[in-house]
């Protein structure tokens, strides 16, 4: 009763988000009109749009730069996260021995790691990618590892009976079975990607001209209290996030629609 329509890409599904979007916009206007908040606190939506258009060249070049960092960082997170998960799920000693240090890496404040990262990778896109990776990879690792370790016992027995090699088990059993977890982690990582890239930008980015990403733009707008433009920049960053989440959703739909409960209608 609460499953999305099976098998067809839910273009219709744009109806609900749009309805909610309009409601949120109305609420926003109401808050601006009657909330008595000054523009530097809560700018009206049309002001955000206007300032966004006004700053369009800056936003556009920031968007391109950050998008580039996001693509690299997300790709690195997916590849690195997947490999790490496979390593972690490959044996008990790897899991018990390595997982704590993966966790520690994740929990190290970036502010502590940043100097080391920049010394190793130099200022700019490489370091931003590393920082984005550090922020994004863990959800993928945690989810995929859990997925890889949650294999149905009977299916595992089947592969044992057919003397499947570890690589075969991985490829034909564990990875397909872990996909629902993997995609969930991927979705979290995708949502973190613009945040990671923005943060990386403010820590390790280049702030001049075409090399300034949205992180830089956001900090500058913020420090100059250009609040409508700041919101415009933030929404621009969100747009990148939606792009990634959308891609992940598409991929997930494509891979799971035929068999996983989350995509099946109630029948059959």
């Amino acid at each position: 009763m609460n499953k999305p329509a099976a098998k067809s890409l839910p273009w219709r599904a744009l109806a609900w988000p749009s309805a909610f979007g309009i409601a949120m916009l109305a609420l926003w206007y109401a808050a601006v009109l009657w909330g008595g908040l000054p523009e530097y606190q809560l700018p009206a939506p049309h002001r955000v749009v206007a300032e966004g258009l006004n700053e369009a060249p800056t936003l556009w070049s920031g968007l391109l730069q950050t998008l580039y960092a996001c693509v690299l960082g997300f790709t690195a997170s997916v590849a690195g996260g997947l490999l790490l998960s496979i390593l972690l799920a490959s044996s008990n000693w790897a899991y018990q021995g390595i997982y704590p240090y993966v966790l520690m890496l994740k929990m190290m404040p970036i502010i502590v790691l940043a100097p080391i990262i920049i010394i190793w990778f130099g200022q700019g896109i490489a370091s931003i990618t590393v920082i984005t990776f550090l922020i994004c990879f863990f959800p993928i690792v945690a989810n995929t590892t859990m997925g890889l370790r949650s294999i149905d016992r009977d299916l595992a027995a089947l592969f044992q009976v057919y003397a499947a090699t570890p690589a075969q088990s991985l490829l034909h059993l564990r990875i397909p079975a872990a996909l629902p977890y993997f995609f969930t982690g991927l979705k979290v990582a995708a949502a973190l990607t613009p945040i990671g890239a923005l943060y990386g930008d403010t820590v390790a980015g280049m702030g001049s001209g075409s090399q300034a990403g949205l992180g830089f733009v956001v900090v500058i707008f913020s420090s100059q209290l250009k609040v409508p433009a700041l919101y415009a920049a933030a929404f621009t960053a969100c747009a990148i996030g939606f792009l990634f989440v959308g891609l992940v959703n598409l991929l997930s739909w494509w891979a799971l629609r035929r068999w996983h409960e989350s995509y099946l209608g109630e029948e059959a």
Partner: protein
Amino acid sequence: MGRPGLPERPTRADAGASPTAVAPLDRGQPALIELAGVGKTFDGRTKVLDGIDLALPRGELLALIGPSGCGKSTLLKLIAGLVRQSAGRIVVGGGAPAEAEGKLGFVFQDANLLPWLNALDNVALPLKLMGAPKAKRRQTAREMLDMVGLSRVPDHYPRELSGGMRMRVSIARALATGPEILLLDEPFGALDEMTRNSLNEELLRLREQQRWTAVFVTHSVSEAVFLSSRIAVLAANPGRVHTTKRIDLPFPRTARTRELPDFHALVAEVTRSLHNVPGQTA
């Protein structure tokens, strides 16, 4: 329904020998599967099997029959090396059970299909794991699906199949590789009598080509008599061999076999000994 091109076991050179040559049991041969004093206790508390002694020469078709929960499935898993015994010794093909993996076909009590593969790909899976080329895989899988009467639904996913159809996919999968040893856990339990009988016959027909040694679990005495060269009746709590009964009906067996007076006598006899089994749980 005898189809051409059924897969032959690749490891045996003498697959072309006359089918009837298989029927007499090679009693002199060393056992292909041997269990001596095998016991299994779960979690140190539940003693499931105790003192199981069984020896299967090559070519034997052993039927396991016994009350629900007496340990039949566990016994199959022990032979397949999926579960480790708590006591005793198990030798399969001269080594530990785990070493025999890859020569096995196993039909689990649940169909145990991969939900993300359609019927055809599920059947083709073990061939893929053995490295068979793609064309061969698809051809064999199709033939196997055909044999179990599912040639119309190769692209159905497990969730789109009925319970009995899923079990038949599972049977097709186990037979696809032409295994040396076949372990079948109530393979036909979810099927109607006609489908069941015809699959029984199909199985015996296939055996003449593939010559596996098999252990199968069934709750149908007549099926046990029809298919097996020996029946082991198990008792429960803990599971142990209550009686074994050699079934000397001649091979090849066909639908006609069921009409023989010997057949009925054997069914009645096994049924009787089953009624005497202690440890019935209901």
